[in-house]
């Protein structure tokens, strides 16, 4: 059998990667997305700084309020909201193009004949999209520079988690978009399929807000719900595994379904195998999660002494809550205590007692509304408090343990009165013009 002269796999992969990047840089969709990102990020940043400054003025007058002035929550999360919008609504259009256009133009038939397996081809396309994502971070980097220049505080671990969350979210969206493009006959159909997932995820998260049961679980496992964990500065192996599992699943599905020469039965068999293997692995990580609190104020963690004491509870701690889930007291309880207890207490059982009501105000008519009951090893206690400082002693008393909190530096907060309007020229003019300057020759096929 004769053989043809061939490049090494790496050389071929490099050539195709350059070609993919060249194709992406020539796509108007990419540059439109980048310009919109720039405008949205700039607007969000200026608004966030304005609101943060207003709150900081009060905090400067009342130092006890300063601890609530956290730049992560006040500046970066709202600013990155612009990225969430872009990644949800615009990124799919760019990602769909890298496969959809090749299918439409017939280039895919040529690429699939090159001595490179479809899996590698998909990997190269994904890598090219990675570069696009890095390019889209330019406005975010500008935000960091401006915030620092204004005298704002930056805590790198929190920012890293935020970037990681958006990176994983984008990776998943891109993988879904690539798969949608692979199985669709046209680009609009692929876009609709992908948006159905991303917008559906947002809708699920929205609908699950303040609900219990299956809807709550589904909401927390939606793409939007998982991203929120990263926005809170909480690194969780469950959410990382879920994001990576979903990305890998859709990536493998894309590689499986990309080649038109494979029999449908073989594609289905491979898809099912990928689903079962990755589903199993992801489920393992989701069911046995590990957490790392990377916030500067350690808001997701108890004092180390408390955490140690709670981990020692070997019996089931049952907490019955007579509060409507939409009640602000319940939400405070959930954020300040229950979420932390879930991560510390080995055997925790939460019971959300039915309030017998259909609404927040009717709930208040019930006699024991607001009551929280605690049971450990046959011993019971109850309280109306939702404060961690009052509840932990109750639990320790029931369990017969003692915990003396270790001294920890108090979070002092970082109030800052600043005016970010000077940056608007960069976000509204300089950066869009910069993108436009690269886009025009690229889109006219000059490269």
């Amino acid at each position, binding site marked *: *059998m*004769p*053989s*043809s*002269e*061939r*490049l090494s796999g790496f050389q*071929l992969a490099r*050539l*195709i990667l350059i*070609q993919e990047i*060249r*194709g992406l840089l*020539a796509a108007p969709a990419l540059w439109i997305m980048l310009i919109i990102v720039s405008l949205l990020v700039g607007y969000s940043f200026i608004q966030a700084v304005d609101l943060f400054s207003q709150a900081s003025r009060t905090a400067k007058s009342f130092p006890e309020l300063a601890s609530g002035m956290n730049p992560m929550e006040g500046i970066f999360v709202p600013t990155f909201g612009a990225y969430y919008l872009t990644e949800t609504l615009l990124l799919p259009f760019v990602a769909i193009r890298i496969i959809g256009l*090749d299918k439409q*133009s*017939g*280039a895919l*038939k*040529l690429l*699939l*004949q*090159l*001595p490179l*397996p479809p899996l590698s081809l998909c990997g190269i396309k994904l890598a090219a999209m990675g570069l696009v994502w890095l390019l889209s971070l330019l406005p975010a980097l500008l935000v960091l520079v401006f915030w620092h220049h204004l005298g704002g505080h930056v805590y790198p671990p929190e920012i890293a988690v935020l970037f990681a969350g958006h990176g994983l979210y984008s990776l998943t969206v891109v993988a879904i978009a690539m798969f949608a493009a692979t199985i669709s006959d046209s680009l609009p159909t692929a876009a609709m399929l992908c948006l159905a997932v991303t917008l559906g995820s947002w809708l699920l998260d929205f609908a699950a807000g303040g609900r219990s049961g299956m809807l709550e679980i589904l909401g927390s496992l939606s793409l939007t719900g998982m991203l929120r964990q990263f926005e809170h500065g909480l690194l969780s192996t469950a959410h990382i595994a879920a994001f990576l599992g979903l990305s890998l699943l859709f990536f493998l599905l894309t590689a499986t379904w990309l*080649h*038109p*020469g*494979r*029999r*449908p039965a073989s594609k289905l068999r491979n898809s099912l195998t990928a689903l079962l293997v990755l589903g199993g692995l992801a489920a393992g990580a989701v069911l046995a999660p590990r957490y790392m609190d990377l916030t500067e104020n350690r808001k997701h963690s108890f004092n180390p002494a408390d955490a140690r004491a709670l981990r020692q509870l070997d019996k089931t701690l049952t907490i019955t809550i007579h509060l409507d889930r939409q009640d602000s007291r319940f939400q405070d309880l959930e954020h300040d205590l229950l979420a932390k207890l879930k991560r510390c207490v080995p055997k925790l059982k939460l019971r959300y007692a039915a309030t017998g009501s259909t609404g927040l105000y009717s709930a208040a008519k019930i006699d024991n509304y607001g009551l929280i009951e605690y049971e450990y090893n046959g011993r019971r206690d109850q309280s109306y408090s939702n404060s961690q400082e009052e509840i932990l002693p109750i639990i320790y008393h029931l369990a017969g343990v003692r915990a003396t909190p270790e001294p920890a530096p108090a979070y002092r907060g970082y109030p800052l009165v600043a005016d970010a309007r000077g940056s608007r020229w960069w976000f509204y003019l300089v950066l869009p013009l910069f993108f436009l300057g690269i886009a025009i020759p690229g*889109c*006219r*096929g*000059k*490269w």
Partner: protein
Amino acid sequence: MKHLRGGPRKIKYPVRKPSASGLRIERIQKTFGTYRVLDDISFTVVPGEILGLIGPNGAGKSTLLECITGLLPVESGTVGWEDENLSRRQRRQLLWYQPDNILPFAGQRVAATLSFFRRTHGASTTDLEQLINGLDLSPMLNKPLQALSKGYRRRVLLAIALLSRQPLLMLDEPFDGFDLKQSLAVMDLLRQCRAGRTMILSIHQLSEAEKICDRFLLLDQGRMMGIGTLDELSRQAGLSPGASLEEVFLAII
């Protein structure tokens, strides 16, 4: 060889080592839903020859080429090289199929597209320059493919195909969109490039096919109606030697 626009031009094309074995297609069947597109197709291609796939539109020519390349799954049948059946990976090393009506990387400059395929095929810059000259593509190099006329698009696709190094080249309608003079020049170019290379050309223009192909495979509605040289097919059709391909085609199909 004739230049596509001007007069004769001496061009030295890369000479490839002749292969000692050939392509073997056995009992290929392909259906789309309940419609059988290819029905029990078997044939061999002798190394170094040009086989013409002849048939009316919808006969299954392109489908057959895609099935051979592995771009379409078949219900049954094998593609082999002598005694060895070819996996999809092996086919990527041995076969190159240039589909009809494609516009790869349409927004990109022709020069960049050709350069990409030159590199991926492992061809030399001299090969590319010769093809650019032979196909008279120089004036179009800085234009995007989508801005070219149908004829020039064909030339670019032909250049991409001829840059490939695989020993078996399959071209779908290579003369479509060319006038007679251009078709003759392309034929000349293909003859120059055939050294050591086997070609399957899917052609629906019988006059062009007769001029370039060594043997013909006649397809109609997915069925193989005959295979052989023009004389062999003439005998099969009960026609006297010297009959044209058109006469043979009409007699058999």
